[in-house]
């Protein structure tokens, strides 16, 4: 085992190995962090989408894109009645509430959407709610009245009647100065106020309101068409990709190696069977088989992993390992081992395989990203695990939503960048290891 340790020590001399290792450690560290902070169950729950994300904008780009571009696009503002100074006027059989929802809006762009979430604690009679919009320049707009259910979502953005009145979609019109001519609308900065006037018809009934002014940028990764924060998928993609890549690489390499060694050691019909199986397996196309399994059976990532490993067992590697092991079988120390009574398993596992391990380690390291890419390709083809957030899934969503056509570059680029980073890390490490463990390459 000493050559291995020596080799690892020698890595310090190869900057590419250090960079590769740094990338891999960063990925592994982030993966551990992710799995600890967003447990598996929670990640699946989040990725399923739905109400958890109602406070998030749709298709918002990452906040740093905005910073780099030098623009000042709106972020999401949530104004809750819990923080507002509520005026209360009780009367017989009811209560009159005035909830002013105030917020400062100092951005260069218009929000992407405007929603009001109303919660009422009535038991029988719904309260009556009237909404008034007050702009910084002193205008007051009546947004109409309604009788909310216990949980009501008032989509101000989708109020067609209001849109007709404003001449623009509400989340633009409400933030724009009075239109002058045909020029593009201009944002007015300053303090906005949505006053919720509620009349409840039950003495102890309350009304709570949450106003959400959806921004156009969100977090580090942006959001997708289902308001999901892409960060969840980008982060969870790391452990999934690493685990898939590593397990597939280990699974195929170890089984292939042991089978090749057994074939070489026993020779005869064992070797013949292994060689014929390999030859048949080499010409089987892997991707179509995976597509078939995914379509007809299951797209669970574990099933895919199993199929990938199963197809990888009798892979072309067997031919290579066999060529490397054949001279070792004939070497004197193997004969000596046989002479002193080492059993077949001992000879294969303890003498033959460790001899070629140093040569295999670089190959093994560079094999990991190919399986990461394979998993992403499957997801991109729509055969990703249906519940798991992965990079491939993000790209698949981006593709089905025509992200590039709509200019949502971040949606495609960020998972692609992470995939490339993973590939780069393992490749840099693998190539450096190749030079360390196969010194003959160094001088050439």
């Amino acid at each position, binding site marked *: *085992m*000493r*050559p291995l340790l020596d080799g690892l020590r020698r890595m310090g001399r190869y900057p590419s190995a250090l960079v590769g290792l740094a990338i891999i450690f960063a990925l592994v560290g982030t993966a551990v962090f992710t799995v600890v902070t967003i447990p598996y169950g929670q990640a699946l729950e989040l990725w399923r989408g739905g109400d958890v994300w109602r406070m998030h904008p749709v298709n918002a780009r990452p906040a740093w894109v905005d910073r780099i571009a030098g623009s000042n696009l709106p972020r999401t503002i949530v104004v809750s009645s819990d923080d507002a100074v509520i005026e209360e006027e009780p009367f017989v059989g009811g209560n009159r509430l005035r909830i002013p929802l105030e917020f400062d809006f100092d951005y260069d762009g218009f929000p992407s959407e405007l929603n009001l979430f109303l919660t009422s604690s009535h038991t029988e009679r719904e309260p009556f709610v009237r909404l008034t919009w007050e702009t910084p320049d002193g205008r007051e707009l009546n947004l109409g009245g309604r009788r909310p259910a216990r949980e009501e979502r008032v989509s101000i953005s989708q109020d067609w009647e209001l849109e007709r009145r404003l001449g623009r979609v509400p989340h633009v019109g409400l933030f724009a100065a009075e239109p002058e001519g045909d020029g593009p609308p201009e944002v007015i900065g300053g303090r906005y106020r949505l006053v919720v006037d509620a009349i409840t018809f039950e003495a102890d009934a309350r009304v709570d309101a949450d106003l959400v002014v959806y921004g156009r940028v969100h977090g580090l990764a942006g959001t997708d068409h289902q308001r999901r924060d892409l960060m969840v998928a980008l982060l969870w993609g790391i452990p999934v990709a690493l685990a898939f890549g590593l397990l597939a690489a280990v699974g195929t390499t170890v089984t292939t190696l042991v089978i090749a060694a057994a074939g070489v050691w026993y*020779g005869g019909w064992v070797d013949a069977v292994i060689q014929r199986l390999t030859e048949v397996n080499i010409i089987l196309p892997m991707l179509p088989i995976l597509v078939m399994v995914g379509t007809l059976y299951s797209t669970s990532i574990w099933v895919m992993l199993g199929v990938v490993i199963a197809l990888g067992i009798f892979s072309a590697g067997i031919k290579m390992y066999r060529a490397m092991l054949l001279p070792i079988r004939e*070497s*004197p*120390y193997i*004969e*000596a*081992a*046989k*002479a*002193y*009574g*080492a*059993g077949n398993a*001992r000879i294969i596992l*303890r*003498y033959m395989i*460790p*001899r070629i391990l140093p040569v295999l380690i670089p190959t093994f390291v560079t094999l990991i990203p190919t399986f990461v890419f394979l998993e992403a390709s499957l997801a991109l083809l729509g055969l990703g695990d249906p519940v798991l957030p992965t990079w491939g899934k993000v790209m698949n969503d981006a593709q089905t939503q025509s992200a590039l056509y709509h200019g949502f570059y971040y949606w495609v680029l960020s998972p692609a960048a992470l995939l490339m980073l993973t590939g780069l890390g393992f490749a840099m490490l693998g190539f450096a290891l190749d030079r360390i463990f196969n010194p003959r390459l160094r001088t050439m």
Partner: protein
Amino acid sequence: MASEPLLRVEDLRLHYRSGNGVVRALDGVSFDIRRNEALVVLGESGCGKSTLAKALMRLLPRNVQHFSGNLLVDGVETMGFSEERFRREVRWVRISMVMQAAMNALNPVIRVGEQVAEPLRVHRGWSARQARERTAEVFGLVGISADFLQRYPFELSGGMRQRAVLAMALVTEPDLVIMDEPTSALDVLTQASIMNALKRIKQELGTSFILITHDVSTSSEIAERVALMYAGQLVEFADAKDFFGEPAHPYSKLLMASVPRLHQEETPVHIPGQPPNLLNPPEGCRFAERCPSRFDRCDRDPETFRIGNRRTVRCWLHAAGSRA
């Protein structure tokens, strides 16, 4: 001769297939060795010495065509043993072996100490920790410092490696150690010190040795018995004193005459011709073609005759002796 010899080999035959036909590498070899005895097997290259060593350990080549004879260890016939039983009960338990090219017989990626301990782990199921102490002990016996336990084979000199391989052969305390060309690749000084180590070990442990070599002078150092092979057959088997003093077989005589001696005026003799091809050995005596004493009986395969105490010769010239 009352007690059973440690190892008795009777009519051992090993033929294997090659591209051109069947090679009769061993064709009826019989000998025995007692406890605490050093037997030197002499012979030219290609006479079947190494094949004999491997056949005794039942390390047969993959292309073996015929393997027969009797191999009695302490009077117990082992030819009938299954491969597994032979592995568990004979190899390294009764007989161990130092391979030819012993310097390459160490796995380059395993520490010497670990490797020497391997037979203990395989045969006695000892843990690495248990084996370490015994390994250090054996290292002392063969004359290597225990510091070398932690080294890798490439860090050892040729002589050290040879000793390490010897240590590996001795670690399970076998009754017999077969050494195939143990000193061929070493310089004279190292050869001598290894021979001395062998003598000492033989004295201390009472181990028997079979030394397979073509080096007549070095082997005469330790030899108590000598077996001379020619073309897959044993031509003479005798006490070392008798053999070196008064060789009986014409081949033995010529061989002894061919050994160069210090301060000797006459040039060493060389034997004209070459050994017969084992693919198709000639009828009759295999040495006949090169034999100066050839006569008409030599056209028939000679029998092995017993002449004197524990001495046999496969030559018609000694037909006066009793048939062995």
